[in-house]
Structures are given as C-alpha cells and as structure tokens.
C-alpha cells in the first residue's frame, strides 16, 4: 500500500464521515429514548434511588439527543444544512458559556439557600446534555422561524 493510496483512503473515509446521518425515522426513536430515560431518571430519584438506573438514564438521555441531532430531516437540502450548521455553532458557544457561568450560579444559589460555600464544577454529562439540548431545540426553532 503506497502513501498515496493510504491518503486517498483516508480522504474517502473522511468524506463519508462528513456526510454521515441517520435516516429521518431515527429522530422519533431518539426522542423516545430521551423521553423514557428522562422519566425514568425522575422516577428513580423519587422512588428507587438506584445508582445503576441513574447511570443508564443519564447515558440514555445523551444517546437519545445524539440520535435526534444526527438524524436527517424529511428533505435534507442546502437550506436545512445551513440551519443545522448555525445550530451547532450556537450550541457550541452556548455550552462553553454555560460551562463558565453555571458553577458561579450554583455557588450563589447554594450560598443563598444553604449558606454553603462550595464551588462545584459542571460534570461532563451536564455539558454534553446542554450542548445537544441547545442544538436540537435551536435547530427546531430556526426551522420554524426561518422557513
């Protein structure tokens, strides 16, 4: 295998990866997974307090939003692609800003309510949830307002 053919293979793989999207019907499946896991997380928090169920629910919400995020629209044209890119840009900036701001808000709320002075940083899951949640909802909002 020559270097040129390796580079050519990498280029083709990258192109395939760039265009990778799930079919439109997976959007509903992703939404359903996220909803079920969201409900199970609440039920678990109030009734069972099971660590394994809590972890599964967290992963499930993330997976559900990811599936929704990478699912195609019924007609995936250039306008939709542009809106999708705008929503990813917005979500990325919003998630970074939230990662900066949220710990200070948490600190202020904890201090106001409990009088505790504990500085807690956001976990990976919270940041990823926020990123996907903002992307999915901002994309839907853009479709309704721009289209």
């Amino acid at each position, binding site marked *: 295998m020559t270097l040129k053919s390796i580079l050519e293979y990498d280029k083709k793989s990258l192109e395939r990866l760039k265009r990778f999207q799930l079919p439109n019907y997976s959007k509903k499946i992703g939404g359903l997974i996220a909803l079920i896991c969201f409900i199970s997380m609440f039920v678990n928090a109030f009734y069972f307090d099971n660590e394994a169920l809590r972890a599964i629910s967290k992963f499930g919400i993330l997976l559900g939003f990811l599936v929704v995020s990478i699912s195609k629209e019924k007609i995936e044209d250039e306008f939709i692609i542009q809106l999708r890119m705008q929503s990813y840009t917005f979500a990325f900036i919003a998630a970074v800003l939230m990662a900066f701001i949220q710990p200070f808000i948490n600190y202020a709320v904890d201090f106001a309510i409990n009088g505790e002075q504990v500085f807690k940083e956001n976990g990976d899951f919270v940041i990823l949830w926020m990123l996907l949640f903002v992307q999915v909802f901002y994309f839907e909002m853009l479709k309704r307002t*721009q289209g």
Partner: protein
Amino acid sequence: MKNRLKVERAILDITQEELAKKIGVSRQTINSIEKNRYVPSTVLALKLAKLFGKSVNDIFTLEDED
C-alpha cells in the same frame, strides 16, 4: 440580494410546494428565498433559472449593499 422568485412562480401559476418538489428542496427553502432570508447556492439558482427558462441574472439581482 433581491429576487423575482415569487413573480416567476406566479407566472407559472405554481405553489411553493410544487416548485419545491420540481427542484428537490423543501417548501421552507423556497419560502426563505422568496422572503430574502436565504441566498441559494449557485446550483440551486441555476436549477431555478432553468425551470423558469430565464438566466440567473433575470431572477436574482445584486443590491448596493451586496
């Protein structure tokens, strides 16, 4: 950039939905172009021009701020 998409569509007496189907985009895309919220790609502009039997310049016109 201004465009005469709505006028050309009215001449052909077709709806946004019908036009969208003919060139393989969504109705929202046609609506956004008509309302000047979205500037189409060269490929889409050429497809529209071909469908209306006119040149791209007859449908899309640059404005001073462009």
